C-alpha cells in the first residue's frame, strides 16, 4: 500500500528512475515527485509509526509525531519550491541528486531508530555532494571533497555512538540521549557524546562549521537552494529530538549567533554571506534547544520552518543573480534593481523576513526563542540574541539586497530571472508574508501545547522590534553617509578551514622536512664515524702503520726477555 510508505521513500526511489525521463522532462519529474510525496505525507494519520523487522531487530522506518511532522512538512515545501526553481536545469544528474537528497532528509526526519537515521544521514551526505560538484570547477570539486569527508565523519561518529549505546543499553531508539541529571555534556555517556558531536558537525557548531561556508557558495545556483534547506535543519531536528535541554547547547548556540555576523560584514561573496547568516540563524535554534522549555522547542521548530523558507528565498535571489550576471561578488554587483525588479522585490521580502520585521515570518518565530530566554530569566542569553538580531539586520537585512541590487551602479544590465525562478521566489515570498500574518496556522502545529498562548503581535513587541531594526538601519545610513562603512574588497577571509586547508598541510610538510633533515643528519654522522674508523684502521694496519710494519727479530727477542723477566719477578713476589 503506497500511503504506508515512509515519507521521502517515494522521492528516493523516484530519483533513480528520473534519468529515464531524459534531459527535457527530468526537472518536471522531480517537481511531480516532490508534490506527490507531499500529498502522500499529508494523508498519513497523526502519530503514525511504520515498523520493520530487519535481521531480528525491530526498526522504526517512520514515526510521525508533532516534532517530526512539522520538519517533514517544511522539507516537502522546500523540495517543491526548489524543484520549481530548478525547472530550467537540463542536467539530469542534479535532479537525481536533489531528489535523493531531499527524500533521504525527509526520511531521516521521520526515522524512529538510529540505524534508519544513520543510513539516511549518510545518504544525504553522498547525494548532496553531487550538487556541489555539479558546478564543474576545480574549486567546487575540492570543496565538495572536503564537504564529503566531513559529512562522512559525522556519519561514522553517529554510527559509533549508536553502537556504543546499543552495547550498553540495548536500545536503538532515536529519542532523548540525555542520560544524566543535571543535563550536561559531562554527564552524557560516551555513546551520547559521540552522537552529539555527529549532530554538531551537521548543525555547524563553532569550529565544526566551516564545511558550510566552504561548500554552499560553490554549488550551482539551484543546488545551493536545496543544500540550504536540508542538512543543517535535519541536524537541528535531531538535536531537538535527542538533546533538548542540554545546558551547553545554550552557549554553543550563543557563540553561533555571534561570530558569523562579524565574518559576514567583511565577506565579499554574497552567497558566502548567506552561508554565514545561515550559521547565525542555526545559532538561534540551538539556543532554543538548549533552553529546552516547551516554548523554546516550539520556537526552534517554528524558526526552522520559517528559516528554511526565507533562507531558500534569499539563496534563490542570489542564485538568480549568479545565473544572470555570472557572479555574486559584491564588488562586481550593484544597480541590478533596474533590470531585475522582481528578484529585487523578492530578495527584500526575504531580507525583511530574516531580519524579523513585523508581518513577515522571522518576526513570529525568532521572537519565540528570544522570549523563551526572557521567560527563563536568562539575561545574558537574551542580550546576546538581541545583538545577533541587530547583526542579522546588518548582513542579511541590508547588505545582501543593498550591495546586489542598489549601492553603486555596476553598469550591468542583466535580464530578469527566468519565469520558473520568479515563480519559485514568489512562492517563497508568499510564504514569508503568509507565515508572518497567518501565524496561528503554524503555531497550532508546533510540537507542544502551551499553557499560555504565545502572542507575537503586541504593541510593545512590534514597537520594540521596529526600534531595534530601524535604528540599526539608521546606523547603516549614518555610516554610509560618513563614509565609515567598510567598502567591499575582493579578498579571501580566513576562517577555521584555514586550519585544515593550510595549517595542517603546511605542518605535515614541515614535519616531513624535519624527518628528512634528521634522517640525512644521522646518515651523515654515521658515515663520518665509519669513515673515521676506516681511516684509523688504515693508518695503523698499512705497511707503514704501527701494527702493519714488520718488526726485527732482535726487538722481539728483547721484549720476550723482558716479559719473561717480569713473569719471573711476579712468581717470586
Amino acid at each position, binding site marked *: 500500500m503506497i500511503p504506508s510508505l515512509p515519507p521521502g521513500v517515494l522521492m528516493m526511489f523516484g530519483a533513480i528512475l528520473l534519468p529515464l525521463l531524459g534531459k527535457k522532462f527530468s526537472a518536471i519529474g522531480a517537481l511531480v515527485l516532490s508534490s506527490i510525496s507531499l500529498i502522500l505525507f499529508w494523508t498519513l494519520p497523526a502519530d503514525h509509526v511504520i515498523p520493520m523487522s530487519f535481521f531480528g531487530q525491530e526498526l522504526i522506518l517512520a514515526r510521525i509525531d508533532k516534532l517530526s511532522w512539522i520538519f517533514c512538512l517544511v522539507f516537502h515545501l522546500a523540495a517543491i519550491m526548489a524543484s520549481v526553481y530548478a525547472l530550467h536545469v537540463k542536467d539530469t544528474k542534479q535532479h537525481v541528486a536533489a531528489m535523493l537528497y531531499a527524500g533521504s532528509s525527509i526520511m531521516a526526519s521521520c526515522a524512529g531508530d538510529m540505524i534508519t537515521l544513520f543510513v539516511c544521514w549518510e545518504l544525504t551526505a553522498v547525494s548532496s555532494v553531487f550538487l556541489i560538484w555539479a558546478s564543474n570547477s576545480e*574549486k567546487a570539486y575540492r570543496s565538495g571533497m572536503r564537504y564529503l569527508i566531513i559529512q562522512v565523519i559525522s556519519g561514522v561518529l553517529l554510527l559509533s555512538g549508536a553502537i556504543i549505546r546499543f552495547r550498553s543499553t540495548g536500545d536503538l531508539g532515536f529519542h532523548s540521549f540525555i542520560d544524566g541529571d543535571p543535563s550536561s555534556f559531562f554527564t552524557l555517556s560516551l555513546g551520547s557524546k559521540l552522537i552529539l558531536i555527529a549532530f554538531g558537525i551537521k548543525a555547524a557548531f563553532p569550529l565544526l562549521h566551516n564545511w558550510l561556508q566552504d561548500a554552499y557558495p560553490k554549488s550551482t545556483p539551484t543546488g545551493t537552494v536545496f543544500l540550504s534547506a536540508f542538512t543543517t535543519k535535519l541536524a537541528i531536528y535531531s538535536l531537538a529530538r535527542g538533546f533538548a535541554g542540554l545546558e551547553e547547547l545554550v552557549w554553543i548556540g550563543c557563540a553561533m549567533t555571534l561570530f558569523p*555576523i*562579524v*565574518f559576514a*560584514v*567583511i565577506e565579499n561573496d554574497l552567497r558566502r554571506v548567506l552561508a554565514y547568516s545561515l550559521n547565525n540563524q542555526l545559532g538561534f535554534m540551538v539556543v532554543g534547544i538548549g533552553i529546552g522549555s516547551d516554548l523554546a522547542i516550539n520556537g526552534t521548530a517554528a524558526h526552522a520552518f520559517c528559516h528554511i523558507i526565507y533562507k531558500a528565498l534569499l539563496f534563490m535571489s542570489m542564485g538568480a543573480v549568479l545565473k544572470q550576471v555570472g557572479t555574486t561578488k559584491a564588488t562586481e554587483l550593484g544597480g541590478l*534593481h*533596474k533590470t531585475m525588479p522582481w528578484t529585487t522585490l523578492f530578495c527584500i521580502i526575504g531580507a525583511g523576513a530574516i531580519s524579523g520585521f513585523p508581518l513577515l515570518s522571522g518576526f513570529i518565530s525568532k521572537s519565540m526563542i528570544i522570549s523563551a530566554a*526572557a*521567560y527563563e*530569566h536568562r*539575561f545574558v542569553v*537574551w542580550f546576546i540574541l*538581541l*545583538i545577533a538580531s*541587530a*547583526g542579522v*539586520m*546588518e548582513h542579511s537585512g541590508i547588505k545582501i539586497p543593498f550591495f546586489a541590487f*542598489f549601492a553603486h551602479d555596476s*553598469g550591468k*544590465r542583466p535580464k530578469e530571472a527566468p519565469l520558473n525562478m520568479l515563480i519559485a521566489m514568489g512562492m517563497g515570498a508568499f510564504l514569508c508574508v503568509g507565515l508572518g500574518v497567518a501565524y496561528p496556522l503554524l503555531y497550532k502545529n508546533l510540537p507542544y501545547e502551551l499553557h499560555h498562548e504565545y*502572542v507575537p503581535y*503586541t*504593541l*510593545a*513587541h512590534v*514597537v*520594540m*522590534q*521596529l*526600534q*531595534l*531594526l*530601524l*535604528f*540599526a*538601519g*539608521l*546606523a*547603516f*545610513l*549614518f*555610516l554610509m553617509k560618513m563614509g*565609515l*562603512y*567598510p567598502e567591499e*574588497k*575582493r*579578498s*579571501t*577571509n*580566513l*576562517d577555521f578551514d584555514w586550519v585544515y*586547508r*593550510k595549517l595542517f598541510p603546511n605542518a605535515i610538510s614541515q614535519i616531513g622536512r624535519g624527518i628528512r633533515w634528521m634522517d640525512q643528519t644521522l646518515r651523515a654522522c654515521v658515515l663520518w664515524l665509519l669513515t673515521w674508523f676506516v681511516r684509523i684502521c688504515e693508518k695503523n694496519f698499512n705497511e707503514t702503520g704501527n701494527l702493519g710494519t714488520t718488526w726485527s727479530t732482535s726487538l722481539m727477542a728483547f721484549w720476550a726477555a723482558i716479559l719473561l723477566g717480569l713473569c719471573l719477578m711476579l712468581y717470586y713476589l
Partner: protein
Amino acid sequence: MDPQQTKKEATELSWAERNVKWIGTGLIVACVLTVVVQLLCGPVLPAMFDEKHKAHFEVENFPGFQAIFGFAAFVIIVYLGKLLRLFVMREENYYDS
C-alpha cells in the same frame, strides 16, 4: 540594439535613485515615530502596551532601549568586522597559490 538607447538606459535613474533622499528621510521619520509611540503609548495606554508583554528585565523599561541598542550594536558589529579584517584578510586567490 540602438547604442543611443543603451546609453540612455544606462544613465537613466530609477525610482529608487531619484528618491534616495526621501527614502532616507522616511527612515528617520519612522525611527522617530517608534520612539514617540513608545513614549506616548506607555503612559497613555499602559494596558495596551503592557498587556501580554511583561518586561522581564529592568533595562527593557528604559524608553528607547532597543533603539539605542540597535544603533550601537550595528556600529560595533561593523567596527568589529573592520578589526577582523586586519587578522583574516588575504588576497583573493590565497588558497589557490
